[in-house]
């Protein structure tokens, strides 16, 4: 309807067309591709759902974080019912409420660690790829060291020591987030470097150099936007990895005792597989769901953002 109206006024239509032809950017193409990808949309939906849970956790959860509604009623380790959607655990926590509160911790560690890791990875990748030579050599050797390090082991020791020495509260989720970020940038830096090397050889970089652009301008104005799609994809996948690592650390009992995390719920549940299967099944399901969401989203973004793939 709108269209026909506009076609009655030719001047407007021309303007409109101009606007549209300018509007079809790489991002628009990517969004169109993304919309067609059902798996990617499902991933976005899952991630959106968990973010929703985390944002409105106190409204969604029927009990407050440290409430033990089942404790005085003698309802510890009761199986799922309408009153306790996912059952209760060993001290009478409502497992459903705990799962809802766990969403925030998982997202906090996921986004935080990925942010730290990717910032390092981008800086190392850009510098190493663009400057080459000695700088590249040095940075890549350091990267290789970080690739070989048994990082989970170091993380466990660090967290254990911090909780032994420092007053409670220091070895919290933020420390875990920071440590995961500091130790998991290496493989991403390598991939970004490879991508920078590929872009660096392009003709438009050559042209820009010929025109006398500064190194800073070339890196930030020409190379960075051209590797941005890889960075977005890697960040999404990094979030998934960080969530898995945090869950593993909490599961082993080195997590933040003051926070509610899915990994810790699984740790408690592991001691009670014979008595209460629901204690572990539901938190684990949510870890899987969230990681799956970010993986699907990452894979979908990879297909959508790759400039080499065209319809």
């Amino acid at each position, binding site marked *: 309807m709108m269209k026909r109206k506009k076609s009655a006024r030719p001047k407007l239509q021309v303007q409109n067309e101009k606007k549209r032809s300018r509007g079809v950017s790489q991002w628009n193409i990517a969004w169109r591709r993304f919309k067609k990808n059902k798996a990617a949309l499902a991933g976005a939906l899952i991630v959106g759902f968990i973010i929703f849970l985390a944002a409105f956790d106190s409204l969604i959860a029927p009990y407050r974080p440290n409430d033990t509604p089942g404790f005085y009623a003698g309802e510890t380790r009761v199986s799922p019912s309408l009153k306790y959607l996912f059952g209760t655990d060993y001290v009478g926590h409502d497992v459903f409420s705990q799962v809802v509160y766990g969403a925030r911790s998982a997202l906090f560690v996921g986004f935080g660690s990925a942010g730290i890791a990717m910032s390092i990875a981008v800086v190392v990748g850009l510098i190493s790829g663009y400057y080459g030579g000695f700088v590249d050599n040095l940075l890549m050797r350091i990267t290789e060291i970080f690739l070989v390090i*048994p990082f989970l082991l170091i993380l466990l020791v660090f967290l254990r020591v911090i909780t032994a020495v420092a007053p409670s509260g220091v070895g919290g989720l933020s420390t875990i987030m920071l440590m995961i970020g500091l130790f998991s940038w290496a493989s991403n830096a390598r991939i970004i470097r490879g991508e920078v090397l590929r872009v660096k050889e392009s003709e438009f970089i050559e042209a820009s150099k010929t025109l006398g652009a500064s190194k800073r301008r070339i890196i930030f104005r020409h190379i960075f936007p051209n590797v941005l799609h890889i960075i977005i994809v890697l960040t999404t996948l990094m979030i998934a990895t960080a969530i898995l690592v945090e869950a*593993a650390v909490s599961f082993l009992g080195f997590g933040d005792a003051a926070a509610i995390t899915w990994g810790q719920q699984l740790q408690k549940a592991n001691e009670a597989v014979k008595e209460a299967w629901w204690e572990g099944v539901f938190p684990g399901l949510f870890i899987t769901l969230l990681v799956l969401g970010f993986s699907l989203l990452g894979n979908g973004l990879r297909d959508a953002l790759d400039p080499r793939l065209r319809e």
Partner: protein
Amino acid sequence: MLRYLIRRILYLIPLFFGVLIIVFVASRIAGDPVRLMTVQNPRITAEARANLSAYYGLDKPLYYQFIIFLAELFQGNLGNAYGIRAGTPVATLIGDYAWLTFELQLAALFLSLLIAIPIGVISAKKQYSKLDISVTTTSLLGTCIPIFYMGIIAIILFSYFLGWFPYGGAHSILPATYPFGSYELDGLWHMALPTAILTFATLAPIVLLVRSSMLEVLRQDYILAARASGLSERSVIYKHALRNTLIPVVTYVGLYFGAMLAGAPVTETVFNWPGVGRLFVQATTKLDFPVIMGITVFITIMTLIANLITDITYGYIDPRIRLE
């Protein structure tokens, strides 16, 4: 080939030192070991602390400590444990536990390669078929489920509800409960569930990798040429394409084996498997630093050896790399 090999080994040495330095510094940054040892003892005097420091050489500067650590390391001396089986040399302790870890990890790695490569190839061959979609979906799910969760679910299903497998451990406590009275069968019976879960977790990413790598290779010109010259499909895929498909897979498996070993604490805790991983968790809980350092160094060396084997296989599969 020999020159290539020597170059690779020389290349690993600085890498090893780099890792050692970071591990050493990280363990020192975390806190003064003497203070950690005595944190549960409120009545300890400053003098006793100083004595302990002197005894362990902790009053010397950090670089000096590192040199001593290195010198002892090359003589195979990793120190004595003071938390777990106090007084036992760490090397002996690791030796007692390492075999069980290897048994589990190598069995899983071997099985997963054996299963993943054919599945990945078939899946790529029939891209977008129902089989392919179910394979990729299952594999993607396999990469998203935390391994300890998979373990817990398996224990709930197969040990609790069905009662087919034991809840954990590497052997029954009482010989009377051995199946058919055989110690070996008992070991296999305990190993089945952890191996199956670890295999599935390892399998999933390898299947996806083989599939995408195969698809990439099948698009190459030489495959078209092979088909054009009238070779059978079987010959094209298994003789011409597979070899090139395996190059990224080999790289991945080398890196992945290190990750598997470093992930051993998680796997072994779920199944209560008495390997170095669980030993590491216990040592960390008790702040037993010699054992912690020992296991970290041990796993690093194993990772580097896996990398070396990768490089060798790599040079064997792809002659271009060797000549470079």
